[in-house]
């Protein structure tokens, strides 16, 4: 393993220091427990929108802290969900009478730790709700299992709920909106290489030079299926089909297309993939009305991409377009 780090045990803390130094006008960080909080928190009379999860997916979530998006992010150790006391500290730092919405990606660890935190917060008289995002079509959906993972859909979910909260929506409204987004967003990911977790020091899985992990998550866990490497046209069609046929997205639907780099894929390839996805959706009569292209929910240095589709309507478009000012997403502000 070769990484630009000192002691693997301190990677998250040291990285947060750099984040704080780089974006002092947007956010503050706290080291123990690790937190990223809006510089102007708590924002009076506003529903706090809080998310978190294991580190290694940057800019998710700390890069989305700021006006129009998150009030706080709670970074766990690399690929490890944060503990309840950290989540609870984020709630305490940001939440007033308007309450807080916790955005939780569907992993057993995240769900359990955030659940406990919500109980702790409720015990202190704060109104805290949580929603669980589970948009990964690679995983079979079933109540007998852990269910689908939360992946790319988390980014538009945080943007849209953050925008509603910024406009003064109530906790009921923000929660309902979040559930609406979760109901109509779907994603799929692929990996060309594996990430290396600093405290492990070896790649999370090994892929041959002619193999792709199809249906990969964001934690270096192997994907659903290993397929032979194939040209971009075929691979993107396979991804678009998996996502579009799941909800399903149909001709006439208006969508946000989010083409995400898993970290190590160069922009040259990412935009190439995005262009193909646009054409494949056009062929299906699905209207791409908004797009996001970049590394927004990553898996360390893993090469690969994910494709997320969110069904849009005027309300969601309006909230997507609303001003946002964070380290990683910024417009109209």
């Amino acid at each position, binding site marked *: 393993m070769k990484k630009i780090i000192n002691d693997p045990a301190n990677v998250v803390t040291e990285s947060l220091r750099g984040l704080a130094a780089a974006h002092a006008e947007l956010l503050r960080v706290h080291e123990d427990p690790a937190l990223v909080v809006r510089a102007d928190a708590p924002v009076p009379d506003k529903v706090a929108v809080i998310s978190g999860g294991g580190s290694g997916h940057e800019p998710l979530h700390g890069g989305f802290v700021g006006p129009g998006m998150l009030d706080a992010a709670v970074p766990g150790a690399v690929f490890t969900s944060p503990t309840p006391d950290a989540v609870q500290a984020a709630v305490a730092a940001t939440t007033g009478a308007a309450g807080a919405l916790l955005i939780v990606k569907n992993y057993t660890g995240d769900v359990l730790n955030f659940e406990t935190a919500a109980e702790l917060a409720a015990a202190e008289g704060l109104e805290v709700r949580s929603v669980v995002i589970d948009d990964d079509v690679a995983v079979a959906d079933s109540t007998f299992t852990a269910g689908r993972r939360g992946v790319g859909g988390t980014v538009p979910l945080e943007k849209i709920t953050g925008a509603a909260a910024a406009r003064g929506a109530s906790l009921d409204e923000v929660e309902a909106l979040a559930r609406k987004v979760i109901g109509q967003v779907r994603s799929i990911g692929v990996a060309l290489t594996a990430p290396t*977790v600093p405290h492990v020091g070896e790649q999370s899985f090994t892929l041959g030079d002619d193999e792709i992990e199809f249906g990969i998550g964001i934690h270096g866990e192997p994907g659903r299926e290993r397929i032979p490497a194939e040209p971009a046209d075929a691979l993107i069609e396979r991804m678009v089909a998996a996502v579009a046929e799941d909800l399903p997205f149909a001709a006439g639907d208006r969508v946000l297309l989010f083409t995400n780099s898993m970290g190590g894929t160069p922009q040259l390839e990412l935009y190439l993939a995005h262009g193909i996805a646009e054409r494949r959706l056009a062929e299906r009569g699905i209207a791409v009305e908004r797009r996001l292209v970049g590394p927004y929910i990553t898996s360390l240095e893993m090469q690969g991409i994910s494709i997320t589709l969110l069904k849009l309507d005027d309300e969601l478009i309006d909230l997507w377009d609303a001003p946002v000012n964070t380290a990683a997403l910024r417009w109209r502000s």
Partner: protein
Amino acid sequence: MGCTARDVAGALRAAAAVVAEHRDELVELDRAIGDADHGENLNRGFTAVVSTLDSGEPETPGAVLKAAATTLISKVGGAAGPLYGTAFLRAATAVGDASELDGAAVVAALRAGLAGVQARGKAVEGDATMVDALLPAVAAAEEAGGDPAAVLAAAAAAAEKGAESTVPLVARKGRASYLGERSAGHLDPGARSTALILRAFADAAGAA
């Protein structure tokens, strides 16, 4: 012979040593079907438990278990943190403020721990999780009876067999479940850590 607070703390220190020793193995098991952090998470947590104990051991077995529980909850993270944390918390509640635990109390603690894990994680036998180690451990402990050492020895042996039983299973809970059929053929890391910890407890109780 009953277990004092001292004994319980000693057993936890023994478990911490075993977890440290097996950190890489647990990481490796988790790397195969998960995200390669189970050994790191538990090691961070049990190291913190030792620190907690070093800074003052509580006076009853229940209080020691509770201190371990809250430390694990705030230091481990991931799925294992809340699950092990809940197990120790429920075990603490089950033993109340008794100053010594006899075999029956240890059985009750184990039973409460299992109930806590299942309440939180909703896993049943055969889902390929730590439940597959803990559930037979509790059954064996109940059946064995006797003093704490005997109870824990039976639990540890059953947990080891139970952990092995996860190998052929298709995981239905936890991160390994995302792999579907590809999860079969692997030892579940949480089941393995449960067996390791129970063995450490049994050895500590036997030596006490």
